């Protein structure tokens, strides 16, 4: 970056410019000081037109310049102003900057965020500010950061035996101590409390390195990303002074206690309870938490528990409250470390609280405000997952590219094969997107005061955890058999990376979170739109525009009215256009689901997933393009390569958005979704799918129906605890039963489980037999009118019941669908209201119910009056 002084230009006292010049284009990012105000301006002069935009608020004089430049194309004055700036920049190359302080100010002062970035995307709006990729660190801080990274990297490469940590499932104490000494336990704790006071960007950069060992990374993250984060976010000054210094040195390790056996993703349903003692000064904590990272080594716990509150009208209700708990309070026991798939060295245990006394002043935040505290902690802890996954993948890419160069097959190096090239390329593209997203998110956190950034962080989490999982898996694949061996690190990284899709909010929950948050944000604003759209006669112009917009969208040709391409370097024009298209399509997708489901959208999870994926990928593309533009403008070492990477991210996003918007347009009727839902439903009814093609020859409907009724009664008896069941029924059904189920078993000696395979006719019998249920046909009864089935020796354990259940299910399913397809018995439950879960026996009733209770207000086409 070159800094220049352009005092010559009258209304600018001084300015810093970064620029790159090629033959026919001048592109610059200027940082100004004028009349005491600061800001920056992106200017591009190319092929006879100028596009520029000033960021930040300026006093009147510069506001005029801003007016001249904002979105103006080919306007003479703007061209002149920008031209002067650019020429000055070009002519004064290398002159020293007079105002170093300007830079310092720029980096230290936090701005207020005008609008949340990612949420606005759902409305088809883009924060142009972020096209100037956040530059958070001034040159000095950047250098310090690099100095910090070097010894950590060295330590991780030289002193850490990750394989041993994985094998022994323990981080050696001397390693933990060394990590503490290095200061890694107090990264984001302010300097005044003995920490390093790193901002989000610096924290993310260091996470890239610490992630090289999954166990260490999780231990560190559990300590400071979640464990003590609550204290940082909403601790009182006293709490901070008391605990932070000890936590910063690692003398105390922190843990975050939320999850319970019955409460995973549904965090509000926790059972641990805190009750206020009679003296009103001490809380008593009781309950058990599971899967607590650092649970066995921590001395400091952020614990969430239910407390009894009185609401406004004086009724008792349970609310979640957060507490800061020291191990020394007593009554705290930790279980033995869990034996895990990956991150084996991190200490994960149960933590039990038995009447643990907590003083009043250790409530974190407000009493009853704990759920918000928990969500704030989790939301702010996620962003660094992007950079840590990128760190791991970058290391593996280095390893696999070396392997691909050295290894030869069929007389060629692996790297010459197309499929290997493709894998490595996809990896690099993913890493670029991950890094761009992670550092943009960190940048937003650092640049703005109290930014609304939860959605961005969730996006980073979903994208990077999945890209890491597939990426590591692909790296392993490039090594082939070698990758599968424990002598190589790939399998360990694969196991370690798996957790990222699960912890700190599963990716499923994150997707629903992202899309619901986005839809909520959009919905608030769109209600106006919807109101207008429903009163077309009152707003003819608006209706016309809306119709035209929708029409263009249905033709897959949205009007590109965001004019994004002026904000990035000209060589990224195509990619920027792709981003713009995708943003507009996200808006369209938002409108589709809102219009289709209204408030019921909360249950349309498959659609929500698509919306979330579109949004996540749009963010990835936006961040990548913005970053590449910056790199190219300031002439970074590999800038041209970055352009290609960013263009590829944009292309990938484009393809995905096209696919998902297409599917959303079709809606839930799209065959695959319906099929998935049906199959999913069946699977939950009976865990075992019978592969037997159920070739029963039912002579008459009544035969099978009778048979079913026998079996169903049998099952009921079984469930009621009757061991030997005798079922009586009419002859035709019994015949079928005898032929299909009972007879084959009769031919099998009852006491010989390893019977002759020939005699073993039906799969049902196999199932029953396997489950230890021996079915016996009582022959003596055959002569009478009502023969009997006797099912003997029934083992009442759950597994056997389930197998029997499945057999009966299959029988009933088959018979009913065969006999009366128009009125399937099994389908009774399908008439279920999506809004209130009430069930109805036929579709008509459901419709009536919905019409009565859940109809969205619709407007009359003629008068515009809204009715139920």
């Amino acid at each position: 970056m070159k800094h220049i002084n352009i005092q010559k230009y009258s209304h600018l006292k001084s300015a810093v410019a970064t620029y790159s010049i090629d033959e026919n284009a001048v592109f610059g990012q200027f940082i100004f000081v004028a009349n005491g105000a600061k800001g920056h301006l992106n200017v591009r002069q190319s092929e006879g037109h100028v596009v520029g935009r000033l960021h930040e608020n300026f006093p009147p004089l510069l506001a005029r310049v801003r007016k001249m430049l904002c979105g103006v194309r080919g306007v003479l004055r703007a061209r002149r102003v920008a031209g002067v700036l650019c020429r000055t920049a070009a002519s004064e190359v290398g002159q020293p900057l007079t105002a170093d302080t300007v830079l310092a100010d720029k980096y230290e002062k936090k701005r207020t965020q005008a609008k949340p970035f990612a949420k606005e995307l759902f409305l088809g709006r883009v924060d142009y500010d972020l096209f100037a990729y956040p530059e958070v660190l001034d040159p000095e801080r950047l250098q310090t950061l690099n100095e910090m990274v070097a010894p950590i990297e060295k330590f991780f490469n030289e002193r850490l035996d990750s394989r041993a940590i994985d094998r022994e499932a323990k981080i050696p104490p001397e390693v933990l101590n060394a990590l503490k000494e290095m200061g890694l336990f107090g990264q984001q704790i302010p300097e005044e409390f003995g920490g390093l006071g790193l901002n989000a960007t610096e924290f993310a950069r260091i996470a890239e390195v610490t992630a090289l060992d999954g166990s260490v990374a999780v231990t560190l993250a559990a300590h400071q990303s979640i464990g003590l984060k609550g204290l940082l976010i909403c601790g009182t000054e006293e709490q901070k002074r008391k605990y932070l210094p000890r936590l910063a040195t690692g003398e105390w390790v922190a843990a975050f206690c939320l999850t319970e056996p019955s409460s995973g993703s549904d965090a509000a349903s926790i059972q641990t309870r805190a009750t206020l003692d009679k003296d009103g000064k001490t809380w008593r904590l009781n309950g058990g938490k599971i899967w607590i990272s650092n649970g066995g080594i921590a001395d400091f716990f952020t614990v969430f528990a239910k407390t009894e509150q009185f609401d406004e009208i004086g009724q008792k209700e349970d609310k979640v409250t957060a507490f800061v708990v020291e191990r020394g309070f007593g009554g705290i026991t930790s279980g033995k470390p869990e034996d895990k798939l990956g991150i084996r060295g991190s200490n994960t245990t149960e933590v039990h609280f038995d009447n643990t006394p907590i003083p009043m002043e250790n409530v974190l935040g407000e009493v009853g405000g704990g759920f918000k505290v928990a969500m704030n902690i989790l939301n702010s802890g996620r962003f660094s997952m992007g950079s840590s996954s990128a760190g791991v993948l970058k290391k593996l890419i280095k390893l696999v590219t070396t392997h691909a160069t050295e290894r030869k097959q069929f007389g060629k190096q692996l790297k010459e094969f197309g499929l290997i090239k493709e894998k490595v390329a996809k990896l690099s593209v993913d890493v670029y997107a991950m890094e761009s997203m992670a550092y943009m998110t960190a940048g937003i956190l650092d640049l703005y005061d109290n930014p609304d950034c939860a959605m961005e962080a969730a996006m980073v989490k979903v994208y990077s955890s999945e890209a890491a999982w597939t990426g590591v898996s692909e790296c392993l694949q490039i090594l082939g058999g070698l990758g599968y061996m424990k002598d190589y690190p790939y399998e360990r990284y694969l196991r370690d990376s798996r957790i990222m899709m699960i912890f700190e909010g599963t990716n499923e929950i994150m997707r629903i979170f992202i899309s619901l948050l986005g839809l909520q944000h959009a919905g608030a604003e769109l209600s106006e739109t919807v109101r207008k759209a429903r009163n077309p006669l009152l707003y003819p112009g608006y209706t016309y525009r809306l119709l035209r917009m929708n029409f263009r969208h249905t033709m897959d040709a949205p009007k590109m009215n965001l004019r994004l391409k002026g904000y990035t370097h000209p060589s990224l024009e195509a990619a920027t256009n792709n981003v713009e298209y995708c943003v507009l399509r996200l808006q369209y997708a938002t409108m589709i689901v809102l219009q289709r489901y209204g408030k019921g959208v909360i249950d349309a999870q498959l659609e929500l997933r698509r919306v979330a994926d579109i949004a996540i990928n749009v963010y990835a593309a936006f961040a990548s393009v913005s970053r590449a533009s910056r790199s190219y403008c300031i002439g970074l070492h590999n800038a041209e390569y970055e352009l290609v990477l960013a263009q590829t991210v944009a292309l990938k996003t484009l393809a995905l958005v096209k696919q998902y918007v297409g599917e959303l347009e079709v809606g839930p009727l799209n065959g695959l979704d319906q099929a998935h839902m049906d199959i999913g439903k069946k699977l939950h009814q009976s865990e075992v799918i019978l592969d037997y093609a159920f070739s029963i020859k039912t002579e008459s409907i009544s035969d099978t129906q009778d048979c079913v009724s026998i079996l169903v009664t049998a099952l009921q008896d079984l469930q009621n605890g009757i061991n030997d069941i005798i079922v009586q029924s009419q002859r035709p059904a019994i015949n079928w039963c005898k032929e299909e189920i009972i007879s084959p078993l009769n031919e099998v000696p009852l006491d010989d489980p390893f019977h002759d395979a020939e005699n073993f006719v039906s799969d049902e019998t196999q199932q029953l037999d396997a489950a230890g249920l021996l079915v016996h046909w009582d022959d003596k009864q055959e002569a009478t009118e009502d023969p009997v089935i006797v099912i003997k020796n029934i083992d009442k354990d759950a597994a056997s019941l389930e197998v029997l259940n499945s057999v009966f299910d299959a029988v009933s399913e088959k018979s009913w669908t065969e006999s009366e397809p128009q009125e399937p018995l099994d389908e009774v439950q399908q008439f279920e209201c999506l809004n209130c879960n009430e069930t109805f026996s036929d579709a008509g009733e459901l419709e009536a119910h919905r019409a009565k209770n859940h109809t969205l207000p619709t407007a009359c086409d003629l008068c515009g009056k809204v009715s139920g």
Partner: protein
Amino acid sequence: MARVLVGVKRVIDYAVKIRVKPDKSGVVTEGVKHSMNPFDEIAVEEAVRMKEKKLAAEVIAVSCGPTQAQETLRTALAMGVDKAIHVEVTGKDLDTLQPIHVSKILAKLAQDEKADLVIVGKQAIDDDCNQTAQMTAALLDWPQGTFASKIEKGDGILTIVREIDGGLETVKVKTPAVLSADLRLNEPRYATLPNIMKAKKKPLKKLTPKDLGVEIKAHQEVVSVEDPPVRQAGSIVPDVDTLAAKLKEGGFA
């Protein structure tokens, strides 16, 4: 108590795969990771330990090189050095900079800073010259203890164990003296993050060779830098006799 001057050099990181420039004028340094010469790290560690044992009053690190050499100095400061001096050598001078020039600079600084002890790494891993300590001692006319694997400080006397071919040699030198650190002298520490932050506040003085009266003049010319020859494929011999015959043939036995 002694004042210790430590020389540190910024070199291409030991883990980097070295690439020779196409025109054979040198190796590629642009965009390549650099770090402190590992032997210099040992020298810094030794000096810092002396300070921690109250054997030294102040430790000063010196580096000659481009602006980025300051990063190396910051590392030294983070490891516990008290102040740093950067002798800026850039452009053409950097290409001609040789151990003799560095020795002159170190000798001058040792006098200016009233140092009692100069410690450097035994050699740098980039040019492997192994000359600086010896020449500095000569210029100052101080005793020298090179390849030290153990240093013990007595009153005005240093006992140094040197690693030499075939064993260890113990020498005693009077201070002031010049020492060079060998691999087994100690195990350098990792700079901790809090110390890196603190290091930012420590003084870093900038000088040029001119300020010290040292002229960087070329005494030699690099004709060509080449990759080491690629190892030829070997062959497997069926038995010992053939091996012996082959060795004889090659003149090895």
